[in-house]
């Protein structure tokens, strides 16, 4: 295997340039995909037999909820790489993941709650999925709070990396404890989620929406990564040749 491309890309200047070039593509492609999928989801897709029109919320809720977990694992893996191989760029990626991740988690909770009101009759239920998503939000907030409390960026990187890794080890434990805890007490609500044999015409916009959110997150990550690289490379010489 030839790893030269990897080392080249992993150097801050080329990563910066790469992120700058990639961002508009990700952004505009995802916007187009989102508009199409939202139009399909809101107006074209037929009604769900059980949930009627309320099921249209699926097109924002499911992509966001799945992305919130994906972003956390990405953050933890990047943090681990940064900690083990002392790679600045990996730390920068982890740091850039936190804010969009927290926003996505909040949005997943909010849209889930809005969906829950007409379906379950309550804004909130201490259901397994909701609870573990809430704990995920706490993990994001703790990560950001820890980062913010260090003045030195190198120490903030390493300390928050440890927290992210401990958090990801704990995520399956939290998940199963919560699922198990809930199923002992009550098991009714989840059956409402049972797919009534989802039709391809319903599924295609959902898949498109999931990828659209993924690309949008990629675009946001590009900007966040650029900011983090600039913050870490304050005194590097390549900066002066960049734009001024």
């Amino acid at each position, binding site marked *: 295997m030839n790893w030269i491309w990897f080392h080249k890309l992993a150097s801050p200047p080329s990563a910066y340039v790469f992120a700058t070039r990639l961002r508009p593509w990700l952004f505009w492609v995802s916007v187009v995909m989102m508009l199409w999928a939202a139009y399909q989801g809101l107006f074209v897709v037929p009604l769900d037999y059980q949930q009627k029109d309320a099921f249209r919320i699926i097109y924002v809720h499911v992509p966001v909820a799945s992305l919130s977990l994906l972003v956390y694992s990405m953050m933890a893996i990047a943090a681990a790489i940064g*900690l083990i191989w002392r790679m600045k760029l990996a730390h920068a990626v982890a740091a850039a993941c936190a804010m969009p991740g927290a926003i996505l988690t909040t949005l997943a909770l909010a849209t889930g709650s809005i969906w829950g009101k007409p379906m379950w009759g309550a804004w909130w239920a201490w259901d397994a999925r909701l609870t573990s998503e809430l*704990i995920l939000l*706490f*993990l994001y*907030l*703790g990560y950001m*709070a*820890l980062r913010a*409390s*260090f003045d030195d960026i190198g*120490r903030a990187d*390493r*300390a928050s990396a*440890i*927290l992210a*890794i*401990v*958090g990801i*080890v*704990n995520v399956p*434990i*939290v998940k199963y*404890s*919560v699922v*198990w*805890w809930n199923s*002992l007490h009550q098991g009714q609500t989840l059956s409402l989620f049972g797919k009534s044999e989802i039709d391809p015409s319903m599924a295609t916009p959902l898949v498109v929406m999931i990828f659209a959110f993924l690309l949008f997150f990629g675009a946001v990550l590009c900007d966040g990564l650029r900011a983090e690289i600039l913050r870490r490379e304050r005194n590097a010489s390549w900066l002066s040749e960049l734009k001024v």
Partner: protein
Amino acid sequence: MMQPVRHTPGPLHLAAVVLMRELRLALRRWDQVLQPLIFFVVVVTLFPLATNPELSALRHIAPGVLWVAAMLASLLAADALFRPDVEDGTMEQWVLSGQPLPWLLFSKSLAHWLLTGLPLVLVTPVVAVSLGVEQGFGTIMMVLALGTGVLTLLGAVGAALTVGLRRGNMLMALLVLPLEMPVLIFGAQAVESAMRNEPALGIISLLASVLLLAMILTPFAMAASMRISIE
């Protein structure tokens, strides 16, 4: 201070040295050692005052009350786990000593559990009676012993992460409490089945495996965090 050792000490010897040091220090400041215990009892007292003081009503929330109080007490105690040693330079000596830092910090956490977790476990039957618990005290103590072990280890990671910060107290609660939620869930469940005299072996073995996992993994997280905190 640690005794000067001429030969390379074995791991058990090392742990014994650390344990003896911690216990001796604790004897000297026993009033501080008692604080988490008093805090535990005070927090439990708050619930009857805030809700319904009928024993039959308290019985319903007893497992939750016991565990929330135990979590808060262990959190309060964890803040003082490394701070004195970091401030007087002892911790720097430990890091530079060439001895395995994860093992040293694990031994220190063990001593910390003996000083804060164990008294809490021992006082639990009395507190539980005041919440209307009538049976299953042995199981409850066992469950609390396992659970406070996990709480101490996770609290130690949080303490090591935040010990370099000037005001890490609130931050530590924010970091550690979400990670401790599985203990709360399993622990409260086990206490509930113990109160109904049902077999709780399944949940106890689950808690034990969580403790084992924490014993294996957290010392390395503690050591890595400590290296960052004192540099």
